[in-house]
């Protein structure tokens, strides 16, 4: 509270003040109750991941000896790192592709005047609405003919040819950069490529970071496409697939190990989230309100 606001504030009658305090207490109670409901699943999953096999049979909730070795036991029958490497390849290379191909397209759609721009943008928006399932049958057939099934190629290579969501978000951001900056650079003799690389990209770093993050997580979590293209070849399973197939890898695996594996899979995402929370919240808002 600054001095000025204290000076201008009139004394609040006790009845109203009491009501305000009550309201605050009520609001926080509701918020805390909701928070507990949102957090309880996490608590159960973590506590289960630390239980011994015997304890799994009992109805107790708190692990009585904390069995941290569940996390290391996991690696004995679950080649975690190999799957993690595949996930990293898909998410990492995919993100590079999406960003590299998305930037010039977003530039042409936002900062160049040319014939067919409106049409291209409408087509782009309509592909934004289409789930992958609509195009999956012919694409699968093409990838079979190319001999790409059972590899990561069908997952990564299409991402080097533009992703509608990325292009859309980048375009929205590029639109907000003042035109005078490009004009000034043009007067100095810069061509469009130079303007894009020296003016637009440095200014759009936050937006580029946001789309890169979104895409990385999308690929990391993606299940449908890896299941289709890599389903039968364990060498190309991503973590998402391998986690689901744990039940097949070792029949009768107990829930504690399964939960431990889920935590290992989720942890990188949560770490990224905590470091880049602002990017997420702002990015989601951007898609909702301006979209």
């Amino acid at each position, binding site marked *: 509270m600054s001095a000025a606001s204290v000076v201008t504030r009139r004394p609040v009658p006790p009845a109203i003040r009491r009501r305000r305090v009550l309201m605050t207490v009520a609001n926080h109670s509701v*918020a805390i109750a909701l928070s507990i409901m949102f957090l309880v699943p996490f608590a159960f999953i973590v506590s289960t991941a630390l239980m011994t096999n015997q304890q799994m049979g009992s*109805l107790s909730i708190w692990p009585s000896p904390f069995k941290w070795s569940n996390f290391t036991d996991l690696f004995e029958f679950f080649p975690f790192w190999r799957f993690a490497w595949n996930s990293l390849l898909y998410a990492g290379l995919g993100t590079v592709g999406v960003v590299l191909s998305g930037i010039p397209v977003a*530039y042409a759609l936002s900062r160049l005047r040319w014939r067919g721009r409106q049409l291209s943008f409408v087509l782009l928006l309509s592909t934004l609405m289409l*789930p992958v*399932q609509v195009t999956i*049958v012919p694409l699968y057939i093409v990838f079979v003919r190319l001999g790409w099934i059972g590899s990561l190629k069908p997952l990564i290579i299409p991402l080097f040819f533009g992703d509608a969501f990325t292009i859309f978000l980048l375009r929205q951001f590029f639109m907000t950069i003042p035109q005078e900056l490009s004009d000034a650079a043009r007067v100095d003799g810069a061509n469009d490529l130079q303007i894009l690389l020296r003016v637009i990209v440095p200014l759009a770093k936050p937006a580029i970071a946001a789309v890169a993050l979104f895409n990385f997580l999308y690929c990391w979590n993606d299940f449908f496409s890896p299941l289709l293209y890599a389903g039968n070849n364990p060498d190309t399973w991503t973590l*998402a697939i391998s986690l689901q197939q744990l*039940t097949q890898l070792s029949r009768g695996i107990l829930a504690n190990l399964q939960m431990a594996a889920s935590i290992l*899979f989720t942890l990188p995402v949560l770490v990224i989230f905590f470091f880049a929370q602002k990017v997420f*919240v702002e990015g989601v808002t951007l898609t909702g309100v301006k979209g």
Partner: protein
Amino acid sequence: MATVTVRPPAAPEKARATERRRRRRRSAWRRQLVALAFMSPWIVGFCAFYLYPILSSLYFSFTRYDILTDPVWVGLDNYKFMFTSDGRFWTAVGNTAWVVAVIVPLQVLVGIGTATVLTRVRRGLGFYRTVFFLPTMVPLVAAALGFVFLLNPGGPVNAVLGFLHLPEPLWFRDPVWAKPGLALMATWMVGQTMIIFLAALLDVPTQLYEAADIEGAGPLQRFRHVTLPMISPVIFFAVVIGVINGFRYFTEAYVVSKAGDWDNPVGTPQDSLLFYTSHLYNQGFEGFHMGYAAALSWVMFVVIMVCTLLLIRSSRRWVHYQGGFR
């Protein structure tokens, strides 16, 4: 271009004018080429990954095709089979409609509810927002496995229900309770919707509330006549996205169905979790009925397009955009 040089020599200004026009035309042409060069990744991608697949899947939908042998033209047989004799198709449509009709309103309601709570707490807003958003960060596969464990008949949720002397459903083992179990999970993952509603609620100008107060509106009227119209574009957005997501609903159901036993068919228990995409996956990529799967994907394409258009048209009646345009 050549015609210009053949023309008789004109007055100097006129020559300069044509020269200028030609230069302008050339620069416009150059600009067009530059733009197309920048667009080229997407143009290739659009043709290869949208235009070609959508058209060729229309062709495949009129054939019987198992990849190994050449496609055989069967006319409208796939569509006829789909609508008249494929019982599982209608089951999948029904389940998908259930998801859209229950989960979408649930997410909108819970999203507005949690966002409203957030607008009313001043201290700790960041903390609560993180907590409510956190579940959406959990990868779907992990979340689904987590809920399979939480909702297993002897699991923690039923332990709590038993403690409260409430009925303990079998959740994912019971065809009646399997979809409500998934709805519970979708509610837990409401964070994205909530964040969008939160931004919209915070955008409502306070003067409007003050004006409503002066006119003697109660909290309910205030919500109905101020908040609701102001956030209606976001509700519209959430509904459109929700409908499209209903069609691609797959991962949760697949993981849940296969969690009990690896050999469980997609849609376990008793096809109660057989959704549109599950059926498409089953037909195309487990049975290799590519022609039929293409027909399913074309129906999906048409329905999504029609739904989106209908939603956009109906929105004119109930979505209020700031600026008074209705």
